[in-house]
């Protein structure tokens, strides 16, 4: 955090100054470790074993926050009698369907009930017709003594019972005393009087079990009562100015703005079905139709009427996974004609660069927008496979357009930072030359396309013809008015164009327009709320008048949990939101994340519907039953509980189960994407992990051209421990070549004790640390780490695994005829080896473009 989010880290230092214990778990010793109270070097890829052991420690030492857990989580819920755990099936849960190659989650459900997963997971399973979901929440079966062997609490207890300090030693390479020190510190700093927080940078998600990493942290935090309370939580420290915004108003294939799912071809055939499959009968998602209708009104304006289902028919439908790597694999198979890349550099920042560039070579046209031509814009020139002669520039038929972009100082607009806070940046100067904002590009491209389709009467062209696209044009360059776009996102009433103050005002009768329901109110009172800048010194520590946080300017989500079931703060020290019995409403230092007049003693009757099903002790209002999920009865594709699986390419056999890897992971079996052995590959015996440096940003598009930063961090390097250096004859400052069967890179060697060697399962394991900012263009150049990585991903969100894989390292430079897996593996070799999967998991039906995943059928045609 000190390296990648330095200014955010000043608050950690402030907490330390006030007595907080800082624990840093990271394979490397970094500037964060230098100031932490405890640094725990951990083997890359073993975090679930570590976190699962914390769960076990908390439960077996009886250190969990009982009143919180019993009232605010699903610990007491009873699970189906058909449920079988990974303890019973050597690493698999019940329900593996070996013909479909995926899980059937029905045996994971609550007893006698189907519930809807919360936001963010809805789009994965929503396809299954389950019209009555949530309707019978009140009939749910519970054991509040938490002793029934099939209640969630007992299932968790058993699931993690073998995650012991000894196992941590074996799986993570962390000495048990060190583990116990961490566990003690965490538990001593949790409870009514104290809270503990988890902060992670998104490298934590870049694993084939990435989602479950975060889930395990959530279980720990819920057991300790650290969610929805000040100083608690799990904070994703995201790496980009508006990466949270790009998820909320997604340029992501599976969602519409505000986490509404994209329609799925097989199920969501019309608006009624779409609503039926996606709304919940209970909890906040019962308001779903209002959000959807307001979005359709925002997009299709007067054309959207009750009679035509608000133009629902204009929306395209998805048929499975259309995520980044899936798309690039299709591109490499020449199935995609055109690609827009805006402010992104996949030829450096995405997995398996050689395969990325093969995709680009097989396009008809490519549009890249950036400050200067990146490696993605110039893949046809000086790319490794071009330099080596494997591919010739004059054979590459892709037409490339490079558009220079405007900087944030040359345009108005809002970023949503990592804590959901929208902050407006004002235009300071005009963009130079032909530099333009993406807003300008999208708007003018849309205007041209509307013109090209103006005369068309084809049904397929109605959506573009009816699209509302009249934004005010400003200045000589005809920049669309960004504030007007924000006003549409924030919502207004149709009749008098009065801006809405919050999502509770949205309607399903076409009377309101709102481009993103969770942002509703960001243009309240006709004022740009994101541009508010009341100095921190002039307001409370929560600073509610600086920018605007979604939803409803709430700074801390689920903050009802900061009070006890009766509505009183858990302690004076940790006071945040509470029930004011006199006023009969929730109040506090933040906007309460609850129905403001719902008394703590309210209990819904059997007839309750929608929001009325939420009781006064249901803080997690987005969940169908208002409780946080320790156990996920159906939301994830790889199981209801996080389980330790090894990375696709590991150096160790899974010490816990016969099942080596996540059974539902996404693999691409293609000749340009070969894998190493599951473990013990003697050709690639070392662990590799990639990371960022303070002075550079992602794939370098915003830093490798900036001399000040290049001076601070001038050259690509790899970090190795003195032991590994001795073993491989590497010299500090000398050259090394790091390779996988997919690519090879050279870099200067930094021999440093910051890298740790682990002794595990009787072997010494070494790690090579590889920053991933460089490639062949810019003012500071070097080889790209992602030449080494593979297409392999988490099944839930299709995020790649780049933080743990296996490599070889040798002293000296790579040959000038460097190799890349442009057309196949670097070396021909037998890859017979240990199996990654149990026999029943081995044969997954192949999807398209080499994809094998434990999920295709769930969203593909039923």
């Amino acid at each position: 955090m000190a390296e990648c989010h330095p200014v955010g880290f000043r608050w950690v230092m402030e907490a330390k100054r006030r007595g907080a214990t800082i624990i840093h778990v990271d394979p490397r010793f970094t500037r964060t470790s230098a100031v932490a109270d405890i640094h725990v070097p951990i083997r890359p890829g073993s975090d679930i074993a570590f976190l699962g052991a914390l769960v076990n420690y908390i439960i077996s030492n009886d250190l969990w926050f009982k009143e919180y857990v019993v009232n605010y989580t699903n610990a007491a819920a009873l699970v189906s009698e058909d449920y079988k755990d990974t303890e019973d099936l050597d690493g698999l849960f019940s329900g593996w369907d070996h013909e479909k190659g995926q899980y059937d989650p029905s045996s994971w459900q609550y007893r006698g009930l189907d519930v809807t997963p919360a936001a963010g997971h809805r789009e994965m399973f929503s396809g299954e017709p389950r019209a009555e979901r949530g309707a019978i929440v009140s009939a749910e079966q519970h054991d509040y003594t938490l002793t029934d062997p099939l209640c969630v609490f007992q299932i968790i207890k058993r699931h993690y019972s073998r995650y012991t300090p000894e196992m941590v030693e074996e799986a993570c390479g962390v000495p048990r005393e060190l583990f116990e020190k961490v566990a003690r510190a965490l538990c001593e700093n949790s409870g009514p009087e104290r809270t503990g927080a988890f902060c992670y940078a998104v490298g934590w998600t870049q694993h084939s079990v990435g989602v479950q990493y975060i889930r395990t942290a959530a279980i720990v935090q819920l057991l300790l009562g650290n969610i929805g309370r000040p100083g608690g939580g799990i904070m994703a420290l995201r790496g980009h100015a508006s990466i949270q915004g790009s998820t909320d108003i997604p340029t992501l294939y599976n969602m519409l703005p505000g986490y509404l799912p994209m329609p799925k071809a097989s199920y969501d055939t019309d608006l009624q079905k779409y609503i039926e499959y996606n709304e919940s009968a209970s909890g906040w998602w019962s308001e779903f139709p209002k959000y959807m209708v307001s979005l359709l009104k925002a997009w299709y304006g007067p054309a959207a009427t009750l009679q035509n289902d608000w133009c629902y028919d204009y929306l395209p439908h998805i048929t499975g996974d259309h995520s980044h790597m899936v798309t690039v694999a299709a591109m490499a198979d020449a199935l995609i004609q055109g690609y827009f890349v805006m402010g992104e550099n996949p030829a450096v920042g995405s997995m398996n660069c050689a395969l990325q560039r093969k995709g680009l070579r097989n396009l008809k046209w490519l549009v890249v927008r950036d400050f200067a031509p990146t490696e993605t814009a110039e893949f046809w020139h000086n790319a490794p496979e071009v330099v080596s002669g494997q591919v010739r520039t004059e054979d590459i038929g892709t037409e490339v357009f490079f558009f220079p972009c405007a900087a944030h100082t040359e345009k108005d607009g809002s970023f949503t930072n990592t804590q959901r806070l929208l902050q407006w940046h004002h235009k300071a100067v005009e963009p130079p030359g032909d530099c333009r904002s993406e807003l300008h590009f999208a708007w003018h491209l849309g205007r041209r396309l509307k013109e090209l389709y103006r005369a068309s009467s084809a049904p397929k062209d109605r959506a573009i013809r009816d699209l509302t696209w009249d934004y005010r044009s400003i200045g000589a360059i005809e920049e669309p008015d960004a504030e007007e776009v924000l006003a549409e996102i924030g919502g207004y009433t149709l009749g008098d164009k009065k801006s809405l103050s919050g999502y509770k005002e949205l309607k399903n009768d076409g009377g309101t327009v709102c481009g993103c329901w969770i942002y509703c109110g960001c243009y309240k009172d006709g004022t740009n709320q994101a541009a508010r800048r009341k100095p921190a010194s002039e307001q409370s520590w929560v600073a509610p008048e600086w920018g605007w946080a979604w939803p409803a300017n709430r700074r801390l989500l689920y903050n009802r949990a900061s009070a006890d079931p009766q509505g009183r703060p858990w302690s004076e020290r940790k006071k945040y939101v509470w029930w004011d019995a006199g006023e009969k409403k929730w109040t506090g230092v933040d906007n309460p994340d609850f129905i403001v007049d719902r008394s703590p003693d309210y209990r819904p009757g059997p007839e309750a519907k929608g929001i009325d099903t939420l009781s006064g002790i249901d803080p997690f209002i987005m969940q169908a039953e208002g409780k946080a999920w320790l156990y996920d009865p159906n939301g994830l594709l790889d199981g209801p509980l996080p389980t330790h699986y090894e990375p696709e390419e590991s150096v160790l056999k899974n010490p816990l189960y016969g099942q080596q890897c996540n059974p539902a992971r996404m693999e691409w079996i293609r000749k340009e994407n070969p894998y190493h052995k599951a473990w013990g590959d003697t050709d690639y015996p070392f662990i590799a992990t990639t990371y960022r440096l303070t002075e550079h940003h992602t794939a370098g598009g915003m830093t490798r051209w900036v001399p000040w930063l290049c001076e601070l961090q001038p050259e690509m390097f790899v970090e190795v421990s003195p032991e590994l250096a001795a073993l491989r004859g590497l010299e500090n400052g000398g050259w090394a070549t790091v390779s996988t069967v997919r690519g090879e890179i050279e870099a200067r060697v930094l021999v440093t004790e910051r890298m740790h060697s682990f002794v595990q399962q009787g072997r010494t394991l070494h790690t090579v640390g590889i920053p991933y900012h460089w490639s062949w263009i810019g003012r500071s150049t070097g080889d790209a780490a992602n030449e080494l990585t593979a297409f392999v991903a988490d099944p839930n969100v299709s995020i790649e695994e780049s933080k743990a894989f296996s490599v070889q390292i040798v002293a000296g430079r790579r040959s000038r005829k460097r190799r890349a897996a442009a057309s196949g593996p670097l070396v021909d070799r037998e890859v017979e080896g240990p199996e990654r999967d149990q026999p029943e998991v081995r044969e997954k039906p192949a999807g398209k473009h080499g994809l094998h995943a434990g999920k295709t059928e769930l969203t593909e045609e039923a």
Partner: protein
Amino acid sequence: MAKNGWALRWPALKQLSTGDLAGLGESAMTERTRTLRPRVVEADKVVDSVCPFCGVGCGQKVYVKDGRIMDIEGDYDSPISQGCLCPKGSATMQLVTGTHRTMSVLYRRPYGRKWEKIPLDKAMDMVAERVKKARDETWEEQHEKGHPLRRTLGIAHLGGATLDNEENYLIKKLFTALGIVQVENQARI
């Protein structure tokens, strides 16, 4: 200053005569240092902004003079950053004003070996035509089982995560209306 001022200006004497023994106070000053001002006071306007790099969202002040950016500094009022910027944030000035920035549209013909400059409007027209062509050629109205698809898989998008919310919104709105579903972002990477 008196006639014999040259002697009193001699640093050691000046220190002694003013009692500034550490030599860090008045005796270290000259006319020049006394009149020094931060560059930014000369700015015509100060514009509120946000650091464009990482997700922390540090506040920035952009100082403008004669229509050009003269400096970018941290914003002391921000409850997030209280005036601080890290090395990247501090280099924002060079990011937005540096000579690395390309100012014109570049075009590489199929099988071409070099970039050519082309006018912005022409490039926009060419891209619009290509979108229409690709979309019309690859349109899928229905699945073979009769389910509606109403989309094209012939076009894809990948966006960075330093784009503004408003930009992402228009991209998603336009591309969805065109039936483009392969719309992706750094947020998944």
